[in-house]
């Protein structure tokens, strides 16, 4: 793990991580142990578990986890392995019903205890209803309609999210139609990807026709304080003078979003594995990242529009035309980011270990992210 490096330029900030922190398999193994297993991870939405006993399969820190809705409105998170002979309990991405292993037909109750064990040949069911033969559980909690899991959380979800929790809960309850969902592997370290989300000096090189064309210059990221280890900020967009009547009408429609209006581009990076961003409350992008290898990260993208009150038929027809354009714009931005992150990773693979790098003033939130990473790695190593 790299440490803070000396910095000869007083107006510049030290780049706290070195090339090896993005390329060394030992670092990723330590991150899984010290960060990914101790922090909460956004995995889905309540709407993904609309039916009783419905479940979906996800992967966190290299482990497959089944998230299931149980009696009432409860949630459970089970590791996807049968405690009998290690078969994966489920193989589909989602489903419904009591969890039952397809190998020897053991089934399990809401608490992961063996409920039915056929072929016992005289062995008492109670002998199979021990903690050792129960499904392994992870912690699972909600923030609004967002579902988070953690293997060994250091603190409850509400404490982990801090002041962001209330905003996220409001936002999640106001999400409307899901307009796009896709996933892809990005050939870049997860930290390269997240650091790219917390600075926009790159907008002019990477997004010249998209984001850079919209933001106010000089560019200001206005960070929200007291949300550590997360990072939240907003940027102002250029004033939109001379709008055509239909553009004003479209803005008026989106202004009726049930999610409180945010200025410009609003972003939150939920350390260590998710981002939520929206431009003027039009498209909400919820993205989760899981490292597959030092130079490979799986990214799952979900794009939503907000619920909007009192939509008339013609307003819905207008949105039906506008939203695909907004979605295409967002996809283009995401693709531009994927390409630059993969380019940075290639650069890292070429970088000598002593190439220290530097953070410019506009990249101060990258320094904040790196400090959170160092703090988490050190705290994890001490426990």
């Amino acid at each position, binding site marked *: 793990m790299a440490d803070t490096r000396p910095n000869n330029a007083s107006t510049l900030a030290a780049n706290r991580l070195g090339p090896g922190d993005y390329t060394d398999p030992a670092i990723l193994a330590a991150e899984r142990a010290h960060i990914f297993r101790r922090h909460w991870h956004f995995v889905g939405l309540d709407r993904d578990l609309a039916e009783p006993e419905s479940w979906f399969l996800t992967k966190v820190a290299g482990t497959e986890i089944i998230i299931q809705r149980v009696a009432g409105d409860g949630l459970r998170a089970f590791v996807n392995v049968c405690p009998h002979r290690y078969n994966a309990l489920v193989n589909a991405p989602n489903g419904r019903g009591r969890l039952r292993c397809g190998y020897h037909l053991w089934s399990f109750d809401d608490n992961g205890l063996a409920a039915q064990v056929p072929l016992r040949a005289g062995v008492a069911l109670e002998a199979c209803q021990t903690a050792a033969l129960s499904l392994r559980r992870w912690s699972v909690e909600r923030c609004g309609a967002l579902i988070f899991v953690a293997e060994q959380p250091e603190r409850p979800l509400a404490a982990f999210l801090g002041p962001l929790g209330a905003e996220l809960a409001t936002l999640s309850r106001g999400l409307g139609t899901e307009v796009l969902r896709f996933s892809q592997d990005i050939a870049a370290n997860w930290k390269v990807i997240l650091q790219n989300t917390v600075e926009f000096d790159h907008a002019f090189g990477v997004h010249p026709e998209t984001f850079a064309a919209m933001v106010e210059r000089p560019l200001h990221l206005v960070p929200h304080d007291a949300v550590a280890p997360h990072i939240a900020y907003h940027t102002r967009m250029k004033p939109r003078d001379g709008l*055509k*009547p*239909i553009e004003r*009408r479209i803005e008026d429609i989106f202004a009726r979003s049930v999610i409180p209006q945010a200025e410009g581009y609003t972003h939150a990076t939920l350390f260590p594995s998710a981002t939520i961003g929206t431009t003027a409350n039009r498209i909400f992008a919820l993205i989760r990242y899981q490292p597959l290898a030092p130079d490979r990260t799986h990214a799952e993208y979900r794009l939503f529009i907000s619920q909007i009150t009192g939509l008339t038929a*013609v307003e819905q*027809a*207008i949105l*039906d*035309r*506008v939203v695909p354009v907004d979605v295409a714009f967002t996809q283009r931005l995401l693709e531009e980011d994927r390409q630059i992150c993969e380019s940075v990773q290639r650069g890292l693979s070429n970088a000598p270990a002593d190439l220290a790098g530097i953070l410019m003033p506009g990249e101060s939130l990258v320094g904040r992210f790196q400090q959170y990473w160092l703090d988490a790695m050190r705290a994890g190593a001490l426990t």
Partner: protein
Amino acid sequence: MTPTEFYAALDEMLELDPGTITGNERLEDVEAWDSLAVISFIALVDEKFDILVETEKLAAAESVGDLYALATRQKAA
């Protein structure tokens, strides 16, 4: 709404000089007919005719005459 009134409304919607649209234009030749104009047309027909344009038929429209026929035929139907 007469055809002349309809063309005038299109002129105003597309921010063209009065009398620009005469009804004989192909939409591909009208520079101002873009994705935003399509949305504006949906709103215009809603306002002037109190009907919701069928977007599939709108996508198939090739001329200003088609737009007028689309609005008036739907109204008649």
